[in-house]
């Protein structure tokens, strides 16, 4: 196998890899493409170039929690969804509220979630979120019974197009007492 001997060939390999990955590629992943013959700074430079190359095209190169990926620009998604109407179903309010509590209050126990929502947590709700790989158990709280502590995963951030939990809309936006009650 002949290793690429110029930077434009390397950029092509990088682009082909990102276009075929189907998931984000981390910097470490991408370095593997070049069998250790690529500097991280060069790689970052190539990624910046690719971002610019594609700026006017149908896809965009974005950075999410676990790495970089090409994705269709938002204006095309409404058409693309027509190909598979049975895509990921929307979750129930119970699931989304549980997710919101875990996302904003993590790490939390089931007891915490029940306290905030005022109802028992249906085990099925937790299972749905775990099967989606959006939440997982990150430890136990040191109280009697040692209940599991839940947190959101990097995969959750990837799926919501975020790099870190700090990119979620700030909770203060929702917690303002001034929110008109009569909507």
């Amino acid at each position, binding site marked *: 196998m002949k290793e690429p001997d110029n930077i434009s060939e390397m950029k092509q390999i990088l682009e082909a890899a990102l276009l075929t990955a189907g998931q984000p590629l981390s910097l470490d992943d991408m370095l593997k493409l070049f069998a250790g013959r690529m500097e991280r700074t060069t790689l970052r430079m190539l990624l910046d170039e690719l971002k610019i190359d594609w700026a006017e095209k149908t896809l965009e190169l974005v950075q999410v929690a676990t790495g970089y990926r*090409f994705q*269709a620009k938002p204006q095309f998604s409404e058409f693309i969804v027509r190909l598979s109407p049975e895509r990921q179903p929307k979750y129930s309010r119970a699931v989304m*509220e549980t997710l919101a*509590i875990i996302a*904003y209050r993590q790490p939390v126990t089931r007891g915490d979630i029940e306290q905030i929502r005022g109802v028992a947590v249906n085990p099925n709700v937790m299972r749905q979120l775990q099967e989606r790989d959006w939440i997982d158990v990150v430890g136990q709280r040191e109280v009697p019974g040692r209940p599991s502590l839940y947190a959101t995963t990097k995969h959750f951030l990837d799926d*919501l197009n975020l790099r870190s939990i700090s990119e979620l*809309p700030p909770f203060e936006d929702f917690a303002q007492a001034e929110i008109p009650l009569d909507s």
Partner: protein
Amino acid sequence: MLTQLNSEIKTPEIKIPEIKIKGETLSELPHDLYIPPDALEVYLEAFEGPLDLLLYLIRKHNLDILDIPMAELTKQYMVYVEKMKVNKLELAADYLLMSAMLIEIKSRMLLPKPAEIAEEDDPRAELVRRLMEYEAIKLAAARLDAMPQVGVDISVAAAYYQHISEIKPPEVSLDELVEAWRNVLKRAKLNSHHKIGKQELSVREHMSQILRRLKTDGMVEFSQLFDMAHDGLAKLVVNFLAILELAKEGLIRMTQQQAFSPIYLQANLGESVSE
């Protein structure tokens, strides 16, 4: 920017599922709180619990969440709970617990207040805190739900590539081979019966080589199996031992027409064993 944010986060409303009673569709809750019995269960399912129901009542009746008229709210709430009881619906314990709490707060508020009552001592404080926290979570949930998601409205590039299937055979290290042999010996308990030394190993390798040569060349003259010019004495001896061992194990046949004439070796073929 802020106004935009506010208008965005105002959006979530309690969504009541479409309710049909005797063919007629109800699009919203009746204002007089009269609930057709058939529909009660459906209404209750629309609420995520007592906090959700309380928030709905507060909004519906334009109550001030920071100064909740407990008597009014409790009355409204109890109407629902009573309906549930009348219809013998399996009442979720959470709803009953909440009625108890509302009644307790209401009665505490009826008690004469000390002159300098601190705000935190307001019996409603904990309820208000919980309602506001839950409302914020509801808004956050609605916002999360509205965010673009991979698999819903984000499509990730996933072009095809040729998965070059160079199925590499497993690597085997010398250590692994030795380990396997050690296991064989351990299990077979051969340790005490067999000593396989370096020398013997060479003899066995030469046996293989000679057999291989006889297989391809057929009959080979004895001296041709020895490379006097290049093989050292040790190797010549090992080679000779290998030939003797092969003969002993009946793997080769040696023939000589008469004394001092060339000796020929060939792999022992079944037909000629009879002698």
